[in-house]
């Protein structure tokens, strides 16, 4: 699958397909089930400074063509992540890259997590999560251009590794936030995180989700994700990672044509653990059948009609 490889942030990605944060744990959970190291990489569950307990159940439920989740960023915290999770990744992933998804309540917390990981081995860079809808204040940075800029600047100063910012879809114009990140020194963008959603158990007259609302992901959000990725990619020069509802190679290729250099697969993994591997294989087959030598030839290659 030679055509799938790309050089980004100074390293080689053997494939554009990564596993999305929160849907692949810390990698080890997939050990033996899928060939993790053959993928482009994985993005870890969010890591915060202190362990977070997470939300009350139910935390997940199915929605039409997708799912809703309100995990509440339950995670083991910086120290245990570094001591217990990162070593496994370091040892087992030699070709696939690891991005560490980072969350925090304050600029300080974000930068402390980054500083606390930076000299460890086993990962490439950071995906800064300013867009989780499932915790109070979770999208604060993602919807406030000034706070976002300050955050990205600070993280930028803290590390020389790639800093990718994961944007929220809940803004009038994602291009604005994409530019803010680029100007503040981000190396890339991830678009998109989930949409806030809610389900109600009509008989019980109670929210289905313990946290009342949660984030909607899965095929249902595919067209929104493609649009927002296109908007973001049009606005910046840095690479964009396309996320949202990808199930098939064709879904992924839509993101690529819209401007994504890499893609992430989330919810689809729950439906079929082979999803990412199959998407990757399908993308390679498409390149071959269309006589395209390199995937990068397709990045952003959507042709707009003259009138647009």
């Amino acid at each position, binding site marked *: 699958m030679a055509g799938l490889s790309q050089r980004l942030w100074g390293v080689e990605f053997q494939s554009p397909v990564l596993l999305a944060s929160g849907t692949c744990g810390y990698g080890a*959970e997939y050990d033996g089930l899928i060939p993790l190291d053959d993928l482009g990489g994985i993005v870890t569950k969010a890591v915060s400074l202190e362990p977070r307990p*997470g939300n009350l*159940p139910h935390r*997940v439920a199915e929605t039409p063509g997708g799912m809703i989740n309100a995990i509440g960023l339950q995670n083991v915290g910086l120290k245990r992540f570094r001591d217990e999770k990162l070593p496994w990744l370091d040892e087992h992933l030699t070709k696939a890259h690891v991005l560490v998804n980072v969350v925090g309540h304050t600029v300080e917390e974000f930068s402390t997590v980054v500083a606390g990981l930076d000299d460890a081995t086993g990962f490439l860079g950071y995906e800064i999560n300013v867009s989780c809808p499932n915790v109070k204040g979770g999208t604060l940075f993602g919807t406030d251009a000034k706070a976002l800029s300050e955050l990205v600047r600070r993280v930028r100063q803290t590390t020389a590794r790639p800093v990718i910012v994961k944007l929220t879809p809940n803004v009038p114009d994602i291009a604005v936030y994409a530019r803010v990140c680029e100007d503040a020194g981000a190396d890339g963008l991830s678009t998109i995180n989930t949409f806030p959603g809610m389900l109600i158990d009509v008989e019980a007259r109670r929210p289905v989700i313990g946290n009342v609302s949660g984030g909607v992901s899965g*095929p249902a959000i595919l067209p929104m994700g493609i649009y927002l990725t296109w908007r973001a990619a049009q606005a910046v020069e840095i690479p964009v990672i396309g996320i949202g509802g990808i199930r098939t190679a064709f879904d992924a290729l839509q993101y690529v044509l819209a401007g994504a250099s890499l893609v992430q697969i989330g919810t689809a993994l*729950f*439906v*079929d*653990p082979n999803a990412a591997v199959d998407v990757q294989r399908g993308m390679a087959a498409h390149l071959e059948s269309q006589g395209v030598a390199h995937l990068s030839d397709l990045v952003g290659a959507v042709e707009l009609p003259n009138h647009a």
Partner: protein
Amino acid sequence: MSTPCRLPARVLSNQRAGADTYWLEIDAPPIAQAAVPGQFVMIGFGLGRLDAPFLPRPFSVGWRGDDGRIGLLVRRFGTGTHRLAALRPGDEVLLLGPLGRGFRWEQDSPLICIAGGVGLAPFLFMAPEAIRHGATVEILYGERTGDRVFDPQLVEKLTGIQPRLYTEDGSRGQIGRVIDGIERGRRIQLFGCGPTPMLRALERLAREEDLPLQVSVEEHMGCGIGTCQGCVVRSVAGEWIKSCTEGPVFRREELSWRD
């Protein structure tokens, strides 16, 4: 625990075994071989469709045959289980399993399995396995209404024993709650699977009588393999722990039983 396996598999048979209740047999040799009682599978249809169940659903392995088939007891509940109940021989499903930790038991005292509704499923698998290894097993099986009772002949065929039956409406078996059938003051091992109120009552009883108890819990699941953190229950330490990998079977001491 062995690594779970992702397995496209064929439905061999699907029979109605009570009101809204179905017995599904699926050809799944690797899962049948590896499973232990109390473990479960995620069953779904893969990425080719969006209709519920879009996310796979967790079901206890309800039995295994020497020929590699597994049995699932499916109760129609919401949209997803309606679709599963309508499966026909030859239909293809996508399985992931066996998953989670199962029941563990000793040979030295009787095993009393308390099943509420579809909580019967894991015991259909466990009873014959335990009996084969020399244990004494009794199943106390409760249903809300008599029409939902899982076909007794099928239970007999699968397990070789007859559960003691309780229905709330008294239309079949004894009237009352299954938990009232537990004989007190006797050295026994308790196993429970069913609705949370039943498990709570069972825990209280086990605590009072100082009896060992293992329960299988039910939570909404995303992945079934520990990645999504969707399926948590409260541990005795007050932390949310994953029922798909730490459970679904827990010793009563492992869980927090406060509301």
